């Protein structure tokens, strides 16, 4: 009996040590512990320690900026899973998509989630912009963060657009043909821009590789860096909450 109790005690203390090594604080029973928690925990550290009650009313932000970021994370995770099975060449891409849909475990589900989350992100980012405009939150001293936001909106659109080509079905190549044809009309630079995007005169192997590289590395990297700066500025400019 004593041996069993000792074993349970030991197991309990090992578990407590494990939990304690990750969370270096107890439950937030007092404001002081809560504040210390915020300083020592990473997830909390990227939040302000103290906020005005009016700032965190859901009716003010509608959580739209946060949801945009959350969708970005969902897209990163589901995107990684898709990358395990997808080869960006005109030979393989389409067959890989079919395999994802019909063969790979959870492949279809993850692909659907990636696709719908991407559409959702375009919408939440757009609505976030509307929220910022309607609450006048772009005014001094947040002019610069509004500018970064504008670039983030463009990057979100470009991420969606580059992803559109990757399934290599009739929908994707023609949508991208139409989309890149628009670039053609710029004076002088137009045709060159289109050539640069496509890696040729028509949508082909080079285009697929370029879009893939931008979709999985280039744009997410730039986007993530800008988001980091964006969040930093939200903190440093002070949140606008409360009209």
């Amino acid at each position, binding site marked *: 009996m004593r041996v069993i109790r000792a074993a349970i005690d030991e197991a309990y203390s090992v578990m407590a040590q494990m939990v304690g090594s990750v969370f270096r604080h107890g439950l937030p029973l007092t404001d002081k512990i809560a504040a210390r928690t915020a300083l020592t925990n990473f997830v909390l550290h990227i*939040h302000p320690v103290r*906020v005005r009650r009016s700032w965190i009313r859901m009716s003010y932000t509608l959580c739209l900026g*946060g949801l945009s970021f959350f969708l970005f994370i969902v897209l990163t995770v589901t995107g990684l899973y898709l990358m395990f099975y997808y080869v960006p060449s005109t030979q393989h891409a389409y067959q890989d998509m079919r395999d994802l849909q019909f063969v790979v475990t959870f492949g279809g589900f993850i692909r659907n*989630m990636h696709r719908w989350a991407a559409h959702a992100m*375009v919408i939440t980012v757009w609505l976030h912009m509307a929220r910022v405009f309607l609450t006048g939150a772009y005014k001094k001293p947040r002019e610069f963060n*509004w500018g970064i936001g504008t670039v983030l909106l463009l990057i979100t659109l470009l991420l969606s657009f580059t992803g559109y080509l990757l399934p290599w*079905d*009739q929908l994707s190549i*023609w949508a991208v043909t*139409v989309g890149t044809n628009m670039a053609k009309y710029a004076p002088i630079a137009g045709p060159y821009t289109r050539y640069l995007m496509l890696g040729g005169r028509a949508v082909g192997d080079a285009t697929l590789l370029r879009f893939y590289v931008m979709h999985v590395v280039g744009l997410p990297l730039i986007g993530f860096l800008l988001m980091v700066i964006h969040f930093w500025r939200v903190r440093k400019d002070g949140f606008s909450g409360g009209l």
Partner: protein
Amino acid sequence: MATEARDRIAARDRIAAQRRTVDAPSSVRDDSDDEMIVSFPEFIFKEFIASVAMTVFLIIVSFIPAPLLGQANPGVTPNPSKAPWYFLGLQELLSRFPPLMAGVAFPTFVIVLMILVPFLDRNPSRRPSERKVAIILFALYMVIVVALVLIGVFFRGHEFIWNWGWVLGSPQSCGGAAC
């Protein structure tokens, strides 16, 4: 316009007064909206709820299959050929105006204008009632964009010609070609 200008002067005075008092300590706990509270757990909890709600939503919609048509075929052009929905506003403009204007000048203008908005809007107030002009202009912009996208998605059929019949996106309409 005159009332807007008067509102604006009033707003400027009010905000200047606010700046003067902004450093006044407010350590009193009053349970009001202005009270400073520790963000953990209340704020974090709200974010958690929002992300759980979004996750549930995503899981539900992920049972809807994402479109996958026939393999890409550069020889067969579906008709109509449509850009992704968020670019359909642009495509719509392209079908109505000269390409240089609709495809280049217009989008560039909108992007530059957006970045400049905080500098063009000289009104310091953030109260909706004091920024009627800005809000009306923005609402107009939103309505135009949404209308153009909806037209592009639903009312453009074969040859991108107007069609009242709710042509659902490009997937279903490949102009009879095997897609």
